[in-house]
């Protein structure tokens, strides 16, 4: 009897209970993440030499991080003036209520110290304000003069922790610095940090330089230069400054680019009036012909795994993008839209191909999947080309020329970056006009 009663009770109870309600959340806010970056706390400021004190690292280091995160378009860094808690306390443990009050979801705090050997120790912590917990903490040592690199490495750590993919701030950009009138343009090779700081010229400008490209490890650069009106492909070691000629090539030579393993250079040059794609082994200088087609084949770029090559060719009558195996077989046209396509570059992530498109007199920078589907035009302008990927395959850098007045007066060329969503377009400051940019890999890798 008692068992029956319990059975009925359980039966009654279960009949009243409800299943878990399941709701699918498939939409959300695409606004940048509200982030607060507090000034860093200086521990024992008396130990800091005057030279370092003048750098005002407690303000400038967070400022560089702020600039990096803001330019990425994924973060919105709140104004310092709105911060309630002072760095002196926030570096220990933030008062989360204060940061929540200003609508910050993420907060960065840090501490600076100089050790006995004169090295700068930078400690940073990343806080999830909403969940009230620390999600990343790191200490870095460096000579005080390389504080900007520390800021970039911290930016990368924050970016990686909050987006899940590698950052691209501790990188450099090599480009062609242009000056002088259109008819007598001086073109020098220049290098700078990805944020435009630490700009240096690598050549004097006596010779015309074109299409510089980083090697996968970021230590070497290949570029083209005209010596006595003959195109030459050069290799330049960034660290040592040693420059060597890879080879003299007859006729027009275009856009040398490294293979993913860094052992070969792939380029196109004209032989007997026909332009085809060739690779050259850097060590043995052995040249191998990849394509053999009466059409003009140019702008080759390897896929990250080295198995495929994307290039452009006019074999269909118009300049279009083709993909083939690395041995030159099975070339297949992938671009299908109207207009002309050029300068294809395979993303380091391997999922997309960036290109320049010319249609009805306008230039577009766009991306498409490796099979040619999903073409998206990110930006359109009077003249722009030469996209180059950031190491994480999320941002493209390219150059854009303005029309100027009569005879090209007032025209300028500048570097721009755009993310693959196409929403976040940023101009990159350079001391002179700039063209043909190439993004290095992560320096800290």
């Amino acid at each position, binding site marked *: 009897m008692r068992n029956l009663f319990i059975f009925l009770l359980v039966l009654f109870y279960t009949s009243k209970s409800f299943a878990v309600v399941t*709701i699918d*959340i498939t939409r959300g806010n695409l606004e940048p*993440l509200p982030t607060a970056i507090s000034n860093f706390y200086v521990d024992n400021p008396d130990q800091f030499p005057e030279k370092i004190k003048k750098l005002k690292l407690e303000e400038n280091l967070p400022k560089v991080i702020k600039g990096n995160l803001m330019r990425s378009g994924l973060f919105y860094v709140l104004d310092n003036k709105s911060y309630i808690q002072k760095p002196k306390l926030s570096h220990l443990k933030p008062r989360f209520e204060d940061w929540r009050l200003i609508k910050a979801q993420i907060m960065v705090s840090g501490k600076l110290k100089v050790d006995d050997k004169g090295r700068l120790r930078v400690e940073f912590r990343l806080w999830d304000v909403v969940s009230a917990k620390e*999600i990343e903490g790191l200490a870095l040592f460096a000579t005080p003069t390389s504080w900007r690199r520390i800021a970039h490495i911290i930016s990368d750590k924050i970016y990686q922790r909050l987006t899940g*993919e590698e950052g691209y701030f501790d990188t450099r950009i090599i480009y062609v610095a242009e000056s002088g009138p259109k008819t007598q343009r001086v073109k020098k090779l220049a290098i700078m940090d990805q944020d435009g700081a630490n700009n240096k010229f690598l050549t004097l400008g006596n010779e015309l330089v074109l299409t510089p490209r980083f090697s996968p490890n970021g230590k070497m650069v290949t570029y083209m230069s005209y010596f006595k009106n003959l195109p030459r492909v050069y290799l330049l070691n960034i660290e040592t400054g040693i420059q060597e000629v890879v080879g003299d090539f007859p006729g027009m030579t275009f856009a040398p680019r490294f293979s993913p393993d860094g052992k070969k250079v792939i380029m196109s040059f004209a032989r007997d009036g026909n332009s085809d794609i060739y690779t050259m082994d850097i060590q043995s200088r052995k040249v191998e012909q990849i394509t053999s087609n009466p059409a003009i084949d140019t702008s080759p770029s390897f896929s990250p795994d080295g198995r495929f090559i994307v290039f452009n060719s006019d074999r269909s009558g118009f300049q279009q993008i083709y993909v083939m195996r690395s041995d030159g077989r099975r070339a297949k046209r992938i671009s299908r839209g109207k207009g002309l396509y050029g300068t294809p570059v395979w993303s380091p992530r391997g999922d997309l191909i960036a290109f320049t498109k010319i249609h009805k007199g306008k230039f577009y920078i766009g991306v498409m999947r490796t099979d040619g589907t999903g073409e998206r035009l990110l930006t359109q302008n009077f003249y722009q080309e030469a996209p180059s990927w950031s190491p994480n395959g999320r941002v493209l850098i390219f150059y854009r020329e303005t029309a100027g007045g009569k005879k090209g007066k007032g025209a300028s060329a500048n570097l721009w970056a755009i993310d693959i969503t196409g929403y976040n377009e940023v101009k990159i400051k350079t001391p002179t006009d700039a063209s043909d940019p190439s993004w290095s890999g992560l320096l800290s890798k």
Partner: protein
Amino acid sequence: MFRSLSLSILFHLSIFAITFLTLPFVMKKPIDVPPIISIDLIQISDKTALPFAPKAKEIIDKIKEEKERVVTKQAPPKIVKKEKQDAVPMPDQIKKKKPKETDKQNPEEVKDEIRQSSEFEKKELFDPNKIAALIDKSKEETADLQQKESLDITQNQDSSVSLDKGLTITQEDAIKAQIFKCWNIPLGLPYDEDLTVRIRLKLNKDGSILSSEILDHVRMNRPGQGFYKVLAESALRAVRLCNPLKMPTTGHDKWKDLQLNFDAKEMLKG
């Protein structure tokens, strides 16, 4: 005799038959053919330039006058005394407003304990002990007013709750809309991976979160699951930012256990 009688009957029947057959035609109205009106097409551009007909002008003026008279016959606008804004009214100057007596269909007093009141009405019930709480909430309430209007679920809607399923589509949409606003989707995530994050919530009656748990939290710490971790953390932030959720005022049993499946694939695909 018989013959004459039969003739008479036949005669009368024929009369009836004729009457029966012809009467509807008599009653039927003739087709109303509208008279043909002849219209002359004339060029009016030169006629319209003619000076205004004096007689017509008189008639129009008359109508205008009448219209004005109708307006003046109405009561003049009420003159409202301007109160000095600067002057602060003294306590004795403040007139006590008499509560307006309204004609109610049910004049009987309804006890608060028994009376069913909507959530809006509940807010109006004033408790002097909770002034501090009201002040604290005031900012949030004004900011969220617009959102609340669309999200609040009234008792009328509650009546449509089905017994076999916890929430109606409208109620589900209302919860979704709240989470959508709180969830900052990490934009760097790949769209071609299965990264659905399932979070189980236990909710209090007021919609506040009693507990939240990521169902497959083990995956968060697995190597190579960085994207999943990022998405899971962003989903948890969204849930906490939305705390307390605005839930239906009734049927706590139906929604106290809630599972949210966060999937950003569609948004990232664009």
